[in-house]
């Protein structure tokens, strides 16, 4: 579904992505793992078109995304740090997004998360008064709101309380079972164990490997993802 080919991105002298190629297919749940500053978020943002690669290209459903924008109606994105217009209330943000997406071809609402996070009680609260966790809840609800085929979640559970992160995890599993593509970046590896089917490991802007989780377990001889990745990180050092 999403194919990145030789994507390179530099920020000044820093090479954020170095010739990264990856293929993501329907029904997969892919974990993007790597140390801080390894280029995970840059990769995610280039898939969304928020960062324009210096060279290489990315296709979505075999169409180049460079001059396309409609493909984004198939993506639900939850940013690492959700930034929203400060003067707007939660209700206004939700309505604005619905309004903007209302013309999309596959418009259907999925308000499970909005209700599970009890956002309807907070609709009148302004975005600037929200705590980090509540902002994350809004981000998560927005990502799932339009029933997208692809979910891109950047550190989804960072800042969420245990109850909320459990709700979110269950929702991710439910969507995965519907055959959607889910891309997750996270540092809390223990959470990913029962979610992911594939692992992409990145370091210093390079894609080190892209394997299925079974293969990774076999190669490292570790059952737990956290231990497997730890052994990989030690080897690469």
């Amino acid at each position, binding site marked *: 579904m999403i194919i990145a080919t030789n994507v390179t991105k530099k920020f000044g002298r820093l090479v954020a992505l170095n010739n990264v190629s990856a293929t993501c297919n329907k029904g997969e749940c892919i974990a993007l793992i790597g140390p801080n500053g390894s280029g995970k978020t840059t990769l995610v943002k280039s898939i969304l078109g928020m960062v324009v690669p210096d060279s290489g290209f990315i296709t979505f459903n075999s169409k180049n995304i460079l001059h396309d*924008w409609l493909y984004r109606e198939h993506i639900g994105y939850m940013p690492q740090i959700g*930034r929203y217009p400060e003067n707007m209330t939660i209700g206004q943000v939700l309505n604005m997004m619905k309004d*903007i997406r209302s013309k999309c071809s596959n418009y259907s609402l999925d308000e499970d998360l909005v209700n599970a996070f009890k956002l309807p009680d907070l609709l009148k609260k302004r975005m600037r008064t929200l705590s980090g966790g509540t902002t994350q809840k809004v981000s998560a609800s927005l990502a799932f709101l339009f029933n997208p085929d692809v979910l891109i979640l950047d550190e989804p559970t960072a800042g969420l309380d245990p109850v909320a992160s459990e709700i979110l995890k269950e929702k991710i599993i439910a969507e995965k079972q519907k055959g959607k593509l889910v891309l997750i970046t996270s540092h809390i590896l223990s959470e990913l164990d029962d979610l992911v089917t594939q692992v992409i490991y990145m370091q210093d802007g390079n894609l080190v490997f892209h394997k299925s989780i079974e293969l990774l377990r076999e190669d490292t001889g570790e059952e737990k993802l956290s231990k497997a990745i730890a052994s990989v990180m030690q080897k690469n050092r």
Partner: protein
Amino acid sequence: MQKIIKYVITDILRNKIVIAYTLLLLIISFSVFNLEDNTSKGLLSLMNIVLIVVPLICIIFSTIYVYNSSEFIELLVSQPLQRKHIWISLFAGMAIALTLSFFIGVGIAVFIYSFTPTGIILVGVGLILTLIFVAIALLAAVYTRDKAKGIGIAVLLWLYFSLIFDGLVLFILFQFADYPLEKPMLLLSGLNPIDMGRILILLKMDVSALMGYTGAVFQSFFGTTYGFIITILVMLLWMIIPVSLSLRKFKRKDL
């Protein structure tokens, strides 16, 4: 696109600065006309205020607004929307809000007290200057990531257009006083939209006789319909070029 413009305008109206700006213009224009019993004198004072205040407020407000809506822009860019539409809507939203408040603030007073060709041109020049300085603000804001730097550049640009440029022109005039400079002056004035606006208004006031031979050359160019149309076109270019340059930059900007 209309949807984004709608959200931009409601957001601008929600912060009260534009309303304060409208009131300020209203107070200035009504008091100017009430202080002078001669309306054309009032128009002249109003012109001087408009040519200073409108560019200043427009460029600073718009620059700050673009920086403050970075969250809004970031949110929209990850949605199925064209970047071009987001940027143009931002420009259109600010331009509509500011031209509307100028029209209410100055237009009403001018149409009540001095509904003459000069008055209409004053209002027209103010409207075009509003558009031009919103466009320049977009350009200043898109090229600098740092908010303080961007606002600093905006202030410097305003200073350049309203003070420094005139100083440079005077300097050139004195240095080359022995040469015929009337034609080059025409071209030079095209480099500053505020100057073009001032000349357009002054010529309609028939005070060009006070400007000597240069005034006569100006009159023979700007005074004709042909010259008038050229001036308006050049002023529109002053709006279109910054907008399209900033758009080109914004399309490839990393957010």
